């Protein structure tokens, strides 16, 4: 049986305009596509990935225009649609003024003090 793996994402908006996604959300989704048992924990400013209504459209440089900007809230939702649980550190969200109602449906809050308990359910912790 595959070992359950928790991918932790903390770096936020690192090369998301450049890659048109977050590379760790992307690889988590790719791994899910390969039947991997991967869940995701959003920590630090990456909790903002679950905020609905993000709009990165309109980047234009000279004659170049970005046609496929990142859609991180959609990517989080798609990841959950593939069966991944997506957790976020509630303390980090509160610290940043993010309310539960700001976030896409389905993401699960976890108190920072309960992270150790969350980890106990996983054979691998991959902090990217």
């Amino acid at each position, binding site marked *: 049986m595959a070992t359950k793996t928790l991918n932790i994402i903390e770096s936020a908006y690192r090369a998301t305009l450049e890659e048109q996604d977050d590379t760790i959300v992307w690889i988590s989704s790719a791994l899910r596509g390969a039947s991997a048992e991967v869940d995701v924990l959003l920590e*630090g400013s990456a909790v903002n990935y679950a905020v609905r209504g993000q709009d990165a459209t309109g980047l234009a440089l000279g004659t170049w225009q970005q046609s496929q900007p990142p859609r991180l809230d959609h990517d989080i939702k798609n990841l959950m649609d593939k069966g991944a649980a997506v957790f976020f550190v509630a303390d980090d969200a509160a610290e940043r003024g993010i309310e539960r109602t700001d976030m896409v449906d389905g993401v699960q809050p976890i108190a920072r003090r309960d992270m150790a308990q969350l980890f*106990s359910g996983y054979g691998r912790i*991959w902090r990217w």
Partner: protein
Amino acid sequence: MTTYLLIGSQDPFEHSGVQKLYSLAADLAAAGNEVTLMLVENGVLAARRSTVSEALQDLSAKGVSVLADSFALRERGIEQARLQSGVQPAPIDHVIEHLEAGAVAFWN
């Protein structure tokens, strides 16, 4: 009980996440796990007695084994006599030893 290896590379004077890493190490130890914190790169800047180093002594007192990469210490001119109590210099092989033994290892 699970054996955890936490690898800390961030500069404690620049990154607030370092304190969160220390708290996580303490929480994992309090939950009955065997926990080692291995400081590498600029993470070892916390190991020299300073305004931030007592946190490592506290961690050690809570049962976390606190190690600092001896190469990174030497690279930064941090002598053993200046290390905060509770911090032990260790070769990078300690990381491999933990991986060999099947520790759940992650980097911060």
